[in-house]
């Protein structure tokens, strides 16, 4: 086994098995310490799931039309699809309900995100106050010891919401400023933010496409009193705050109705709570509509030095118009006193973030939303923003678990059919390729192992679900996977037909087959990637399976089949093309008694028909030094350089005399060398 020629092949095989073991170990670890399972996760049709019926919220005699429903279904489908490869089903029911069926185990945040209309609007803050009406507004109140509790506390238990804690909640954020690094323009807000750094500060939203920080002190509702009666000139004008609005604002108790959805009219000012209920706002008319958002990505916030802060944010990109509007707004707000320098991001009538603009206008059309996000909620918000607002808001009417649409026997029978198919494929390849077919079998088994591990791992990490169509696709991928082996084997056979030795044919055949396999798999991979990125629903699941099996096909043929075959080609059984090896030159129509070009200016002379004549030839040639090398000359490979006695091939007499001859004999076992090549050629001999 220590053949140096197979070293790289053995190394590749080792790499493959290490990879396989690593995957198995990862799965074992994930099963042990995480929530992974040893079996792949099954899709809606095989394992059942949850069915949510959503009903549109209609005010008064409002009716829904078909267009709105279609749009809503599309957006919901995108939202579900955006969160993985779960293959959810979204359809309408009875004309005005939407039914969403998702496989069990879909994160709650994804389900919650479905019913939200996700109308995102950017409004300037006019007046702000703590969410609970009992709280006395104070300008940047001192940090009271109660605020050291988690910031979630003010939201859930309003009694604990001290003015300072709530006040610190928003002003701690600033545009272009990571809230946690607030240097503290005034000493007071800082302590308020700092004790709650883990909770209050993440709550404090910050739009941070850039530089430093000034903590804006909390504003008071008192500013609202200074209501000019003049017509408002811009959305930040306090003239928007009418007496009625001020009263509405004073009466608003965010802690009591955390779920109340304000009527969000883009052209009018809005009284709104923040999403934790800790603060309330009077907001000017809409500056930028959420429809100007072209992309939204969840990610980790980074500081200016590029280090992540561990805080989840949603990065949004505006289109050209939105970017210009964002620039104009931030430019204007920058010059305004607090709290009117804050820009509120209002999602479904609730302020999810209200950072202040302190560092001048922000160009470039990019912004970052921070808030109380974790990876799941940040992702969900990003999906909601990216795929646009629903034309309607929905409420959950019913939510039930549903049984699989296909009985478990379907899966069992399908797998049985697959197993039978596999056995038949094995039989066929054994008939076609004899023992070489076993290489196919081994490769298919390895492919199956890798696919199984991948799907199970992806089910754990990416919530990948195997539907019945996916199972069928996998059964059928047996054929396409086996095809790369067939392409390879046929190329090797072609090379043998051309007269190469088995070992040489394997290498030469591989070089040619590799190109074919790579380009044809590249086409499949291209199909998978394009369909995955652009299509929706079931097509995505198919594309994913196709891409996965294609990549695994390449991995198997490169890391397993080829090295295995090149090692086998150096065994006697395959290397000499014994009967049933599948590489017998005779069966491939090669005349062993033919002169063939063997490369490098050498030719293999015809093998003698009987071993005696060959041995006789050798005897005269190599003498006793060759004779002990009792290679079975009779069954010698086609490239054994035995020369018939009657052939006046230019055997250099020098060759026998030179010390090269024993060396040639020694290497014969691996690679027979033609006498003319092992010795010096006649002309050269003459020179000598």
């Amino acid at each position, binding site marked *: 086994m220590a053949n140096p020629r197979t070293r790289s092949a053995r190394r590749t095989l080792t790499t493959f098995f290490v990879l396989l073991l690593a995957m198995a170990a990862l799965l074992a670890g994930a099963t042990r310490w995480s929530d992974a399972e040893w079996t792949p996760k099954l899709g809606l049709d095989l394992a059942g799931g949850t069915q949510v019926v959503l009903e549109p919220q209609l005010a008064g005699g409002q009716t829904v039309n078909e267009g709105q429903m279609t749009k809503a279904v599309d957006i919901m489908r995108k939202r579900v699809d955006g969160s993985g490869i779960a293959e959810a089903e979204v359809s309408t029911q009875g004309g005005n309900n939407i039914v969403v069926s998702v496989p069990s185990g879909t994160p709650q945040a994804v389900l919650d995100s479905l019913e939200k209309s996700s109308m995102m609007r950017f409004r300037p803050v006019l007046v702000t106050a703590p969410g609970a009406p009992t709280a006395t507004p104070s300008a940047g109140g001192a940090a009271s010891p109660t605020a050291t509790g988690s910031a979630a506390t003010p939201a859930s238990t309003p009694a604990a919401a001290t003015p300072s804690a709530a006040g610190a909640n928003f002003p701690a954020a600033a545009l272009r400023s990571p809230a946690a690094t607030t240097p503290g323009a005034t000493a007071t807000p800082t302590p308020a933010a700092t004790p709650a750094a883990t909770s209050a500060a993440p709550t404090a939203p910050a739009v941070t496409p850039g530089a430093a920080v000034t903590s804006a002190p909390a504003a008071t509702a008192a500013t609202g009193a200074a209501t000019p009666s003049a017509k408002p000139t811009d959305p930040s004008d306090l003239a928007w705050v009418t007496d009625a609005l001020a009263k509405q604002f004073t009466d608003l108790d965010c802690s009591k109705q955390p779920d109340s959805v304000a009527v969000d009219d883009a052209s009018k000012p809005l009284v709104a709570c923040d999403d934790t209920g800790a603060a309330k706002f009077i907001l000017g008319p809409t500056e930028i509509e959420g429809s100007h958002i072209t992309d939204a990505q969840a990610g980790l916030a980074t500081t200016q030095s590029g280090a992540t802060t561990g805080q989840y944010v949603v990065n949004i990109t505006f289109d050209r118009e939105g970017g210009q509007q964002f620039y104009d707004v931030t430019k204007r707000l920058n010059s305004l006193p607090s709290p009117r320098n804050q820009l509120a991001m209002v999602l479904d009538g609730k302020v999810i973030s209200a950072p202040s603009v302190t560092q001048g206008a922000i160009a470039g059309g990019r912004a970052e939303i921070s808030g109380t996000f974790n990876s799941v909620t940040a992702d969900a918000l990003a999906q909601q923003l990216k795929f646009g607002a629903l034309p309607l808001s929905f409420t959950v009417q019913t939510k039930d678990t549903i049984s699989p649409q296909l009985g478990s026997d379907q899966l069992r029978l399908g797998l049985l059919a697959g197993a039978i198919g596999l056995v038949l494929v094995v039989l066929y390849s054994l008939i076609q390729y004899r023992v070489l077919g076993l290489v196919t079998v081994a490769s298919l088994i390895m492919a199956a192992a890798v696919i199984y591990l991948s799907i199970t791992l992806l089910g754990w990490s990416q919530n990948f679900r195997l539907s019945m169509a996916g199972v069928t696709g996998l059964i059928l991928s047996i054929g396409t996977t086996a095809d790369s082996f067939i392409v390879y084997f*046929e190329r090797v056979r072609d090379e043998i037909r051309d007269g190469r030795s088995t070992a040489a044919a394997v290498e030469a055949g591989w070089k040619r087959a590799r190109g074919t396999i790579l380009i044809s798999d590249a086409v499949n991979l291209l199909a998978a990637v394009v369909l995955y990125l652009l299509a929706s629903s079931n097509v995505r699941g198919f594309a994913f399976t196709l891409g996965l099996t294609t990549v695994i096909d390449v991995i198997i043929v490169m890391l397993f089949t080829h090295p295995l075959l090149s090692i086998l080609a150096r065994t006697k059984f395959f290397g000499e093309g014994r009967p049933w090896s599948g590489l017998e030159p*005779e069966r*491939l129509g090669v005349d062993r008694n033919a002169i063939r070009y063997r490369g490098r200016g050498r030719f293999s002379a015809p093998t003698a028909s009987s071993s005696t004549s060959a041995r006789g030839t050798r005897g005269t040639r190599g003498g006793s030094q060759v004779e002990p090398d009792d290679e079975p000359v009779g069954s010698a490979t086609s490239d054994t350089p035995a020369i018939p006695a009657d052939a006046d091939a230019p055997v250099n007499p020098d060759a026998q005399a030179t010390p090269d001859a024993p060396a040639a004999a020694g290497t014969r076992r691996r690679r027979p060398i033609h006498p003319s090549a092992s010795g010096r050629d006649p002309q050269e001999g003459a020179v000598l």
Partner: protein
Amino acid sequence: MNGFAKFGNDLYTGRRSIDFMGRRKVWFALSAIVLAIALAGLFVRGLNLGLEFTGGSEFRVSGVTNLSGFEGRAKDVVTRTSKTQENVTVTQVGSQGLRIQTEKLDDKTTQAVANAVAKEFGVPASAVSSTFVGPSWGQSVTQQALKALIIFFLLVALVLAVYFRTWKMSLAALLAMVHDMVITIGIYTLVGFEITPATMIGFLTVLGYSLYDTVVVFDKVKENTHLAEITGRQSYSQAANLAVNQTLVRSINTSMVSIIPITVVLLFGLFVIGPGVLLDLALVLLVGILVGAYSSIFIASPILAWLRESEPSSQALAKRARKFQESRGGRANASGQLVLPDGELAVDVPVVEGAAPRSVASSGSSRGGSTGSIGSTGSTGSSAAGTGSRDRRPLHPSVQQGGPRNQPRRTPRSQR
């Protein structure tokens, strides 16, 4: 199996050659007829879309206490009452509810089905509600998928054009693929099966398979035609024909290996499992793979040869090849290989006096019948020298002289 191996060998050497290129009018006509039938089926019968595409009726049964075997019972009742066979899905909702979806039923049938279901499950008629459900695979999903497909076509055309360095191969591959798609969908429509999401996925798989198959054949065509351009012994069509012949065994093997599991799944679907995802997918794939294998050989390559033949460089090559073949006796087969009157492959080199042929002759006579059965079946009366050299590829005279050809030599050690 020996016969198949021999068949493969003959195809490889070009001794036996099926004229795929020359008879292209036959293949094209055949395909045109099938395409016409498929298109007619498409337009006359139309696509039989499943409820996932069109929406359908849904029944909800609540308060069911006896749920044992609910799926079969519900299906029985619904098919019996509504007289529809296809696509009844039954799902358990919650602990006591059932959801039955069928294709869209008219009001009268809906009422009848609702009553029958209520009776079957022993619940009052009021516990069965019926609604219309919208498509879960709506228009927009189809549009998205089509958009993705068109972008994929463009990209694939680009990739293949770059890889093969000619847009004509891209065009031929895409034409073959469209050919496969239309025929597959057409046959599916003619059979009258319902199109479900599984079928759509099947169509996509067929498309991928068709391209894959064509690319494998074209890769060999590229190799052979490149060689022909250097040697000038074959015209473009002949070289392409040889490539198709040489990959024929691969095509047969690949198709067999793909078809075997599909056939098993299909049989299971037909006789054991019943209609469903498995059957839908298996049928579409079986048809698709057969058509795909056919088109990569009979459609894609002849189209390519047809496209390339008119090029000036190809015509020049054809002229060179004709000249060469005429100088060697003129009997070239469809792959441009010279064939002797007795059907054996001619060695393009006449027998040369000297050492090597002599050795061939002697070995040819001495090896007896052991290898003769495999090697040359038609080696009866011809000369011994011919017997030995006929089965293998022709050798150039210069190589038969025995010794090594001119090649770089090592400087003798004494002179280094």
